[in-house]
């Protein structure tokens, strides 16, 4: 449709003025901020969706699941991911010294000279230790678009080309004006409102907040401890992160959080500057009552996630959002035989790691470059 900028009061000129690009960037930032806050509240530990999360919240979000199929029709299941590893092998042999009456003085030690586990005893043990599943919440029914009443109460005024100042009721215009701007920042800007997979906090520095949603893909590796203890440890916990805040930099300082104009139909009827709120509630009314419902109603504008063995992107409407892989020891080493408490022990366990099944999480918004501006 069209970009129609909200009107705001310009104190310098004492007149109504359309929001500048930086004003709109700020409004789009808070739309993403509240989008992220809503998503954040849908998680429980280790990136699972909270069973009591509101059904209309968390659109497009990736979740971990224990099921081999989608939880229900609201989800897209993304298949299995195997965490594999090889198992160390151990041998033991009692130091059962034979009587000295044996004709050979070293006869008693014949059974002490046993070897170490064969290479095959380690190399052939590659097996799936655990299978992990993931799904995305991208088929749920969207909430209703904002009603006229919602627009009147929480929306903004625009200058109409036909010569009127009026409340913006056109959802497509709001999408073009604010949501596509938010999408651009999600794809290549400050990324607030998007997910990322990483073993460490992806924070770029002060003011950048990535919320830790827990382990999304767990990669374990085999371990060995003398004499016969074999097990595993977590080689890497590939965590899911959600960016929930970023420093506003010049946007914040240059526009001083300029608010928009709204029609007030009660009390002193007329045009009024909206109370924009402060801190975490800044612009929350317009974000949660107008922008986010419109966002959810347009499938082509919702940031969604998929998983691929390739990091090739289809176009500028896609962005890589982290990677994970499965690590295991591919070659082995030996130790022993070592005598301990009258028993000889030897073992074969991991040496050099290899990584396999590298996968990428890819965010996509629509299927062409019209999903952002």
């Amino acid at each position: 449709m069209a970009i129609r900028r909200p009107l705001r009061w310009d104190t310098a000129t004492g007149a109504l003025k359309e929001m500048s690009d930086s004003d709109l960037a700020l409004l789009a930032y808070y739309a993403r901020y509240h989008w992220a806050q809503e998503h954040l509240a849908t998680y429980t530990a280790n990136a699972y969706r909270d069973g009591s999360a509101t059904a209309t919240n968390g659109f497009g979000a990736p979740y971990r699941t224990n099921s081999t199929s989608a939880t229900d029709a609201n989800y897209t299941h993304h298949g299995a991911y195997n965490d594999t590893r090889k198992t160390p092998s151990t041998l033991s042999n009692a130091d059962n010294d034979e009587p000295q009456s044996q004709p050979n003085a070293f006869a008693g030690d014949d059974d002490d000279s046993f070897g170490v586990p064969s290479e095959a005893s380690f190399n052939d043990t590659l097996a799936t230790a655990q299978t992990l599943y993931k799904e995305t919440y991208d088929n749920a029914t969207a909430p209703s678009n904002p009603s006229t009443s919602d627009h009147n109460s929480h929306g903004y005024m625009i200058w109409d080309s036909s010569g009127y100042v009026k409340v913006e009721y056109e959802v497509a215009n709001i999408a073009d004006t604010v949501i596509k701007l938010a999408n651009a920042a999600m794809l290549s800007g400050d990324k607030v409102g998007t997910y990322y997979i990483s073993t460490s906090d992806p924070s770029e520095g002060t003011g950048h907040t990535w919320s830790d949603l827990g382990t999304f893909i767990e990669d374990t590796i085999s371990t060995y401890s003398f004499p016969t203890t074999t097990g595993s440890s977590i080689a890497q916990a590939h965590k899911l992160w959600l960016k929930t805040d970023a420093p506003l930099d010049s946007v914040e300082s240059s526009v001083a959080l300029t608010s928009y104009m709204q029609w007030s139909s009660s009390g002193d009827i007329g045009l009024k500057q909206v109370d924009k709120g402060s801190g975490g509630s800044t612009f929350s009314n317009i974000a949660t009552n107008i922008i986010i419902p419109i966002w959810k109603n347009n499938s082509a504008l919702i940031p969604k996630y998929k998983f691929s063995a390739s990091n090739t992107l289809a176009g500028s409407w896609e962005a890589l959002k982290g990677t994970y892989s499965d690590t295991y020891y591919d070659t082995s080493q030996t130790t022993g035989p070592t005598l301990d408490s009258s028993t000889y022990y030897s073992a074969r366990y991991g040496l050099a790691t290899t990584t396999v099944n590298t996968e990428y999480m890819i965010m996509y918004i629509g299927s062409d470059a019209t999903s952002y501006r």
Partner: protein
Amino acid sequence: MAEEQASQEDAIDNFNNKIGFDYDTSLIGALNKDGFYSDPENKDFIWPENYVRINTARWADMITGPNGSDPQIFVESFDGTHNKFDQIPFRSTAEEYDSVGIPVSILIKSFLESPFNDIEMITRETNRFRSKLDEEERRYKAFCETFSGEEQRLYEEWKASRSSEGEEFGKMDTVTEEQVSKTVWQILSEASTEDLFKFKLDIFEQEIVQNSENRDLRSKIRKAKSICEVCAAYQELIDAETETKETE
């Protein structure tokens, strides 16, 4: 979260200690102040904000190294509070990370600015780490070449007897002036059980004894009750081996 970090920290320390892998302090500086920095009560040591010291980096895939389609690296680091172990994709500039949508996190920024941001350096660290792992196998092979179940048993017996006597195992011997000035006779006649055992081990390490197939004489050395008996049996074995060689 704190428990998780502490657990990871322990795992890193334990594993590195186990294989004897040390960080290259000529690259990363001294580590002896880390404890002061991680102590929240110590106000004299304040770790720089948004700084992570990269301790080492190695290829996640030690086999393909930098030649994989999207090489990943394992990074061990210290953030002023904890030692951490992470996996990140390898790129050599912030622009390269940014171009593929990877946030240039504090960890990545620190890696880029570290001496480990170099393919050869990562390969060196990988090889250094791997060689420590390999040493276990090398130790085993070396052990196999000299392994004698009998000697091992003697050692275990000796160790057990030391423990049962309440002596401190591994206590370093101190050579006193008195010992240095002792005559050979005094040394031979005053030798303790421990001295006798050590002497036997030394004898068993001699090439001629190791290569000897004369089990009777080897057994005689093992069963000797004094230094003199050991010497006598040793000489007997030398004579026998010499004779065998001459006959051949």
